């Protein structure tokens, strides 16, 4: 995930402020297929966010509602009529649960990513700047956690926090912390590498000469420069957070079905339905996961490509090995390595 090649889009100070906002400036730079991918990603992500925010208005029923004025909801009703996407074996309305699920997902992503950015960035800055044994210890720990299957780390965390399952906020917090533990090493790595690079820069040295304190240097000079790549990691990790949350829910370590709707949990319940040919209970929450992750990944990758001049779409004819129109950061860095060998 660490591309040394990622550079900030050139910001023309003459542009009005709104044109210099991250996503908008990226949009203006994109061409052809790349713009299409960015737009598709933005539309999907926007749809996901809108659904989450307006869930109470969109969803016809509550996520754990099994009856209304006309009596109990029928079980395993095929899509159509009163139930747009059918009902589950427990009588839940699938459509409502898919809509409410978006809200749960957004809450978990926000809590998880903010926590991991906060802790990961702080650790990375301190570790990279101070160095020495502290740095080595933290790197070994981060590498150990990083190498381990993320889902297993999340499961262990989920058990430790809530003993398995819990209420809405308890569950959201547990899921978020589990995901955070997986992500901290990633932020840590990126920020630490950047910090080590920046430490050797002349402006840090001159700040030292002037007599700035370590904390001031870290806060003012290193932090601002080291965090340029964060918007990119944010989008990519948001999609990973959704997948981890769904995985936890699928294994039964997510959030209780009565406290919130969660796509992974619904898929777990839908598994038993498939053998009898009932498809609507699984396909709709599954599609919700795929489309959300797809949208976030498209946005993240487009930003990554547009940040990198070597990968940015070519307006003119290709020259030699130039750069593929768009590729993820790591293989791109690899490509550099391969082509320089």
């Amino acid at each position, binding site marked *: 995930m660490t591309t040394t090649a990622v550079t900030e889009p050139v910001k023309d100070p003459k542009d009005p402020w709104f044109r210099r906002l991250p996503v908008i400036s990226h949009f203006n730079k994109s061409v052809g297929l790349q713009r299409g991918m960015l737009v598709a990603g933005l539309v999907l992500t926007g749809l996901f966010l809108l659904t989450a925010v307006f869930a109470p208005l969109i969803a016809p029923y509550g996520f754990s509602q099994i009856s209304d004025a006309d009596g109990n909801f029928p079980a395993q009703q095929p899509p159509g009529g009163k139930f747009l996407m059918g009902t589950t074996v427990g009588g839940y309305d699938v459509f409502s649960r898919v809509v409410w699920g978006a809200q749960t997902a957004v809450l978990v992503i926000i809590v998880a990513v903010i926590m991991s950015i906060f802790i990961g960035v702080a650790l990375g800055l301190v570790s990279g700047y101070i160095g020495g044994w502290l740095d080595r210890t933290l790197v070994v720990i981060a590498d150990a956690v990083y190498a*381990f299957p993320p889902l297993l780390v999340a499961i262990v965390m989920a058990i430790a926090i809530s003993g398995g399952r819990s209420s809405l906020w308890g569950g959201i917090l547990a899921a978020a912390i589990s995901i955070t533990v997986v992500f901290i090493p990633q932020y840590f790595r990126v920020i630490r590498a950047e910090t080590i690079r920046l430490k050797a820069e002349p402006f840090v040295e001159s700040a030292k000469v002037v007599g700035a304190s370590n904390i001031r240097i870290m806060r003012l000079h290193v932090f601002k420069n080291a965090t340029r790549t964060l918007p990119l990691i944010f989008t990519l990790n948001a999609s990973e957070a959704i997948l981890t949350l769904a995985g936890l829910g699928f294994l039964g370590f997510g959030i209780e079905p009565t406290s919130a709707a969660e796509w992974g949990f619904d898929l777990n319940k839908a598994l038993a339905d498939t053998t009898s040919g009932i498809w609507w209970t699984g396909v709709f929450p599954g599609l919700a996961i795929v489309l959300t992750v797809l949208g976030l990944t498209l946005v993240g*990758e487009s930003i990554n490509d547009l940040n990198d001049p070597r990968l940015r779409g070519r307006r003119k004819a290709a020259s030699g090995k130039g750069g593929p129109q768009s590729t993820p950061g790591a293989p791109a860095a690899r*490509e550099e390595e391969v082509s320089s060998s």
Partner: protein
Amino acid sequence: MTTLIEAPPEDGEGLLPIKKKTSGGGLGRYILIRFFLIFPTILILVTMVFFLMRTTGDPITAALGGRLPQEQLQERIAAAGYDRPIFVQYFEYLAQLITGNFGTTLSDNRPVAEMLATYGAATLELTINALLVALAVGIPLGLIAAHRRDKGPDAGLRVFAILCYATPVFFSGLLFKLTFSVWLGWLPVAGRATPATELALTSLEAPTGIYWLDAIRSGNMAALADVMAHAVLPALALGLLTAGIFLRLVRTNVIGTLGKDYVEAGRSRGVSEYRLLTKHAYKPALIPIITVMGLQIAVLLGGAVLTETTFEWKGLGFQLATYLTARDFVAVQGIVVLLAVIVAVTNFFVDIVAALIDPRVRY
């Protein structure tokens, strides 16, 4: 389920301290230091899992609490030594691990080591199958994408690669089950084999636990066909998850090598584009795949937990989910430790292979 844009960390900044230590050292020294780094990795994970599990209480209360009267519970806790200071228990656990004693499961009372061996084989089989699918799908499609770069097929394949990543294994598994098992009726819904086959294969002398291997060894072709039919859908579901990553990796690397001077030289001599692609550009592009394959082992093992639950494939992942539900933390600890060892050892070998191929990694 790590991202699809994973940078191989092993040769990245992660090993910076080692690079410092080994500056001026040779390959032998690198291997040695890298080898000793396996142990802290495992130790950290074991420690983490041990203490995290213990924050929820002792295993006996977790597993049997509520089902036994309080006095009996206390008796059993005392008998198992769970009432002693946690650090005493921790060091005792470590000492046991070194001698290969993982303890006994609480829910079904069998030695953890035996349980690991039985179900580990099933997971190994699934992982190998999935890796084969991933390579068989990812490499050819990556070559096509590189060849038709920026054209229609390339765009289509890139979306396919992202879809591979965006679809959770349990959802693709569910779709496969619906389509191929329920609607078309071509393949079995779940499990590793029909009960009859399973019985025939497990009653063999010294079974490996890898069913297709056992079937071939015993010359039982009907069993082999049965095992294969059961293996297709789980392997596809788990394999496609990583196929997208291989696809993209092959694509970028082949594009990189296609622009090189020696390929250009071949082209000027009149070597066909097809031959350039499959002979000249392909092989050097495969090197990074080895590094990434090591990382993918962790992804596959994580995915195996979900795949096995989806298809009731009785492997480590399926058992892990079962033991987790039963709150059998001794068994869970055992499984997690084994996976940690596998991941640490694989990463070690990947680093060594990478160092052998590319001397720049080890200076």
